[in-house]
């Protein structure tokens, strides 16, 4: 069946259907001149040489003599008996193979090394940091990581390199950290109840009271066990169940502690007290979730507990599969991940399966065997040759793509009552972002993801105090002209100061510094690793109008998936999804690479007795879509009484303000909304 599909794929490559090459979108029309809004000389994308047609037999010839940058690995042999063969990479491409890049210097398209039409390099400042983070060599500032430290940033859009994964497999084989007794203890629970350290005594008293109550009832009814009591007097059943669950959680917690300690995640500087979900435990759980890309709050909830019960190599295999998924998606330049509708087909899954099958990565043991056959040094430059299915007919180098953002259910009412109590604003329909292409005169949804819209946010007014302000998401047609990788968010003057500083060890001294995590470029920044800027196109020679709204990556994944999650007006996507989407758009639309867009921004603010100076040397790395990508933001369904958002500042009922201090007027206009200079056209900035 698989062979049949492969044969079909090869044939389809000659019949007009698009076969993914190693560098999809490579034979593209060079982009025309940049828009008038762009500074500097734009550089059209370099055109690559067309590939020659090569026979299958010729392509599969062993070429162990070739240097690493000219060869590719072909895995052959019967299932379970893989045989590795080095072949000529160029010949493989000519025969319809896709070169899947497993090198340690792989990045997604948005951080790839680019050149101008004249062959001049257009370096991306963040590429080095992305690679350093993926290889556990640098921290988020680009400074060397302490030896032995791990980044675990897949959850934030930076998958580990193959060398990092190789080391993980090899180490975990030697230190399995897994025994059946512990696994059974963990599997016996679905979650572990979180009790804050401050509430431990209170919780113990509550449990003792319940035990006492059941004991009395049991004696009174002359019943031997609590289980029997629950059966005969169902009113007690919930309490019996709760006690049993809490009892099972103790050994589960102990097993989790053993596992996290063995994995090197628990212990170290922060002291942990056994059996207590303290800060050390919370951080260890968070690291575990980051390591295995588990989207859950930092507690022992279902997905986290399930992963903790599994053998390490099984988790490692899943980590490898996800890392390969991003590389397969990049190599094939596809996007259809099955999210477009309930019954949508996942091209991504199909392609990933084809890659896993051909590499014979059937499970953790098979992947471990592969890593043992290939030393770490080989991953400096390693490409594998695989055959992928044909892409759908609607694929081309210049697809008719567009985005629709549906705001879902929208509330404009104040989120609290007059006496300061929180007022819930439930939503049934959450906001979504859909990427479409036009095929055969119809709009075809390629992917649809949950996103965010704006809502009530804290802002710092000119008097230094915080107020609420409704930061809505604009409705109506827009376009994305600029796509920026490694974008910088220039915090508007109204950004609460408390979010603009952080503690950091600087050259051996703990001190407060400007929080560049938030500003970027970086995976934690307000704009994540990539952003597309929504603008209203300028007419009659006027510049575009930018109201500070973007669709961008975000590390704040809980805000995207939370019922109460809102942005400041932007549409957030998890970083890895945003990277996929914009890589796809850039590979399938005419575009121009402007490259690094320098600026020399500096702004000071006061926090306590120190002035902090924000210094941003670059806006990010610019790609210009030409023509721009159409976007339509649907209004959604307005809930509640207010049919329009409240303008201006609203005092927070739980905040204290000096007596008589008037509520200041909120700044209006794009500048105030977007803030200072970050890449728009008429406005300068951006806000999340």
């Amino acid at each position, binding site marked *: 069946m698989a062979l049949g599909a492969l044969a079909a794929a090869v044939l389809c490559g000659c019949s007009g259907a698009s076969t993914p090459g190693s560098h999809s979108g490579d034979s593209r029309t060079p982009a025309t001149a940049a828009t008038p809004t762009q500074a500097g000389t734009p550089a059209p994308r370099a055109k690559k040489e067309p590939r020659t047609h090569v026979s299958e037999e010729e392509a599969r010839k062993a070429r162990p003599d070739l240097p690493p940058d000219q060869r590719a690995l072909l895995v052959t042999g019967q299932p379970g008996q893989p045989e590795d063969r080095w072949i000529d990479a160029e010949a493989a491409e000519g025969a319809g193979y896709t070169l899947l890049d497993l090198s340690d210097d792989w990045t997604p398209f948005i951080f790839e090394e680019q050149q101008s039409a004249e062959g001049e390099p257009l370096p991306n400042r963040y590429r080095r940091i992305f690679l350093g983070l993926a290889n556990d060599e640098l921290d988020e500032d680009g400074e060397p990581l302490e030896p032995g430290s791990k980044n675990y940033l897949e959850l934030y859009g930076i998958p580990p390199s193959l060398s990092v994964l190789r080391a993980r497999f090899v180490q975990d084989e030697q230190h399995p950290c897994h025994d059946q007794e512990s696994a059974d203890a963990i599997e016996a629970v679905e979650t572990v109840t979180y009790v804050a350290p401050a509430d431990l005594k209170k919780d113990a008293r509550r449990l003792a009271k319940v035990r006492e109550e059941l004991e009395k009832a049991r004696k009174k009814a002359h019943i031997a066990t609590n289980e029997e009591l629950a059966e005969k007097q169902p009113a007690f059943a919930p309490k019996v169940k709760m006690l049993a669950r809490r009892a099972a959680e103790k050994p589960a917690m102990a097993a989790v502690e053993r596992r996290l300690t063995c994995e090197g995640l628990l212990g170290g500087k922060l002291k942990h007290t056994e059996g207590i979900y303290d800060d050390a435990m919370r951080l260890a759980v968070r690291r575990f979730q980051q390591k295995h890309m588990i989207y859950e709050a930092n507690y022992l909830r279902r997905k986290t507990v399930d992963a903790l019960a599994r053998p390490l190599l099984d988790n490692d295999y899943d980590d490898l599969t996800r890392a390969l998924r991003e590389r397969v998606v990049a190599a094939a330049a596809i996007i259809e991940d099955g999210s477009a509708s309930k019954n949508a087909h996942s091209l991504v899954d199909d392609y990933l399966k084809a890659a896993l099958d051909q590499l014979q990565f059937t499970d953790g043991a098979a992947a471990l065997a592969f890593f043992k056959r290939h030393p770490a040094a080989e991953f400096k430059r390693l490409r594998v040759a695989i055959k992928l299915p044909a892409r759908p007919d609607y694929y081309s180098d210049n697809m008719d793509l567009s985005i629709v953002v549906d705001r879902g259910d929208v509330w404009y009412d104040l989120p609290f009552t007059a006496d300061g109590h929180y007022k819930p604003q439930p939503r049934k329909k959450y906001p979504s972002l859909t990427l479409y292409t036009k095929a055969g005169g119809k709009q075809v949804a390629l992917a649809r993801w949950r996103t965010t819209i704006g809502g009530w946010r804290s802002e710092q007014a000119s008097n230094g105090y915080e107020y609420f302000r409704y930061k809505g998401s604009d409705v109506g047609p827009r376009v994305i002209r600029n796509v920026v990788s490694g974008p910088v968010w220039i915090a508007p003057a109204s950004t609460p100061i408390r979010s603009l500083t952080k503690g950091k060890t600087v050259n051996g001294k703990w001190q407060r510094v400007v929080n560049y995590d938030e500003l970027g470029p970086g995976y934690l920044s307000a704009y994540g690793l990539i952003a597309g800027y929504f603008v209203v196109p300028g007419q009659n020679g006027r510049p575009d109008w930018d109201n500070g709204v973007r669709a961008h990556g975000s590390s704040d994944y809980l805000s995207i998936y939370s019922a109460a999650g809102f942005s400041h007006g932007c549409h957030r996507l998890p970083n890895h999804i945003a990277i996929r989407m914009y890589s796809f758009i850039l590979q399938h639309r005419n575009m121009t690479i402007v490259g690094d867009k320098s600026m020399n921004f500096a702004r000071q603010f006061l926090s306590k007795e120190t*002035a902090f100076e924000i210094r941003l040397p670059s806006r990010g790395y610019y790609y210009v879509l030409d023509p721009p990508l159409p976007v339509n933001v649907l209004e959604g369904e307005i809930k509640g009484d207010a049919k329009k958002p409240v303008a201006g500042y609203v005092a927070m009922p739980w905040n204290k303000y000096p007596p008589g201090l008037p509520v200041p007027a909120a700044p209006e206009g794009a500048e105030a909304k977007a803030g200072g200079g970050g890449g728009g056209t008429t406005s300068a900035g951006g806000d999340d």
Partner: protein
Amino acid sequence: MRRMRWGLAALAAAIVLAPLTMAAVADDAVAPEAGTPPAAAKTASKNVRIVFTVLPSSKKATVSWGKKKLGVIAPHAPLIVQRPRDSGPLDVVVRAEGCVPVQTRAYTFEDSKVAVKVTPNDQKNTLLGYREEMPNADGGAPASNPDGGAFFSR
């Protein structure tokens, strides 16, 4: 002569403090503006030069990087620091007598100038983020109360 002394000092510092070196130079020290695209650095040296100045330039200021004092910005004389290219940013604190200390950052992508404006302590209310203090410990009533409970700005 002055240049020679500073040059010798720089050499000594380079030996002692490598890879971090520092030297104060005269006002005419030349460095490209920050923000030059990194493409320009393709044939650049292994190190970058960071020129620290303070505004007003008549002020004397010290520049610290964590535990280490990088040097002094003398009146009308910048502090020049050399760092390995792409070795990560320097988060420094600039202190001038009678002024609010400033925490700022210098980058190592390329040669750059960091001109730090210092604000006298009695003018800190001119800085963004300054806020009027509460009159007393109990803080007073919410601002919304004086005008009869309106929460909204005008």
